[in-house]
């Protein structure tokens, strides 16, 4: 049976058995594109879509008040999205016993007609941390890419060149905060940048404000970002935010052996410490 059909069936079953009140999945949205749909009627589960255009990380909707109102959720995730659930769980943002997670086996999705960067090094084609996993009938071997390959570009520059690069890139930021809105881990009720007494981040879209904002956003995701790529995909200015996120992911892995989203029973990296943390720069 095609994977999409199996998925629709499973979703119907879950709604009929009242294990969940709403299925958060992919479907056709008004624009004609594939986006998030919220299905509460078991008879409408046939509208669920699953293909390589299902790029959105749906776990971002779990934090929304209007979605919470719909009741107990059943969410559909790819392997990379499932990592976000693990982080949300260890940060006490979701209660896994009050939700159902359907994972879909995935061989890559597209963003603006190109394969997403993360897919080339995917190690979760079969999603972890799920209640049900919908497999594909035909299998593919796991991709061999390296997660941090993209960072070579920055590594090959000296400090001045890197600064120039970011000046160019960040000069296009319009402070729309789409990067924040689309990140499952940016769940703060009031984001620092929206607080105005005192103003901590210059809200103007000047280089000064844009550096401050992007440093803040990236660092607030340190040890928490799962590399889903939703922020970069959402950025209307085409700024490659992955580069900042991956820098911190790499630093977390190299310094602390910590990869966000892999384990469900760990403490967050930032907010805890070890007396044995090693560094060579403090005098």
């Amino acid at each position, binding site marked *: 049976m095609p994977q999409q059909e199996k998925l629709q069936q499973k979703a119907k079953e879950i709604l009929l058995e009242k294990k969940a009140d709403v299925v958060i999945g992919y479907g056709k949205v008004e624009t004609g594109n594939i986006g998030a749909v919220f299905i509460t009627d078991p008879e409408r589960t046939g509208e669920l879509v699953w293909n390589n255009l299902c790029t959105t990380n749906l776990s971002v909707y779990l934090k929304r008040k209007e979605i919470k109102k719909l009741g107990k959720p059943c969410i559909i995730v790819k392997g990379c999205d499932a990592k976000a659930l693990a982080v949300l769980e260890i940060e006490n943002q979701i209660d896994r016993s009050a939700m159902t997670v359907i994972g879909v086996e995935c061989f890559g999705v597209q963003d603006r007609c190109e394969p997403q960067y993360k897919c080339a090094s995917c190690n979760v084609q079969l999603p972890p941390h799920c209640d049900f996993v919908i497999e594909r009938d035909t299998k593919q071997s796991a991709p061999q890419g390296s997660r941090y390959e993209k960072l070579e570009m920055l590594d090959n520059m000296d400090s001045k*060149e890197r600064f120039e690069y970011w000046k160019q890139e960040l000069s296009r930021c319009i402070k729309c905060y789409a990067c924040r809105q689309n990140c499952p881990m940016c769940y703060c009720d009031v984001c620092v940048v929206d607080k105005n007494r005192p103003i901590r981040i210059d809200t103007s879209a000047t*280089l000064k404000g844009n550096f401050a904002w992007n440093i*803040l956003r990236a660092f607030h995701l340190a040890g928490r970002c799962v590399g889903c790529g939703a922020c970069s995909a959402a950025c209307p200015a085409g700024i490659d935010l992955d580069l900042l996120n991956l820098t911190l992911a790499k630093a977390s892995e190299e310094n602390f052996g910590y990869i966000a989203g892999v384990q469900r029973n760990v403490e967050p990296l*930032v907010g805890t*410490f070890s007396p044995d*943390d090693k560094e060579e*720069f403090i005098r």
Partner: protein
Amino acid sequence: MSSADTFEPKVIAFVCNWCTYLGADLAGTSRLEYPHNLRIIRLPCTGRIDFNLIIKAFENGADSVLVSGCHPGDCHYTSGNFHARRRWILFRELLEALGIDSQRIHFSWISAAEGTKFQKFIKEIVEKTKALGPYNEMKEIVRQANT
């Protein structure tokens, strides 16, 4: 005289109340002279030194920044400096990737008894910053925003 000789850098130091601030105090009461380029900002603990303050310091014209507190194990609040250390390890890497000059950001553990260490370290930072010159790249960005 060239501008390198007349350049007086602005160095902002974020220090914790219980160790480094008292170290600075001791340097003062012991009449240990250190360069006047330093502006000290006292905070309760290194755990309170938000990374964003470092950025703010540069936005406000700092040529170098120092962040300093109690030695590991000596934090007045037990573990603020351990938390801070973990964050600094990660934060430095982010700044590095952005091309923000890490030679202008200094970290140290200086206790209330280490007036001499404080004096020496401040001298060193100021000399190093003089050699680097003003942090023009950052000042340029701020200037653009203000015009």
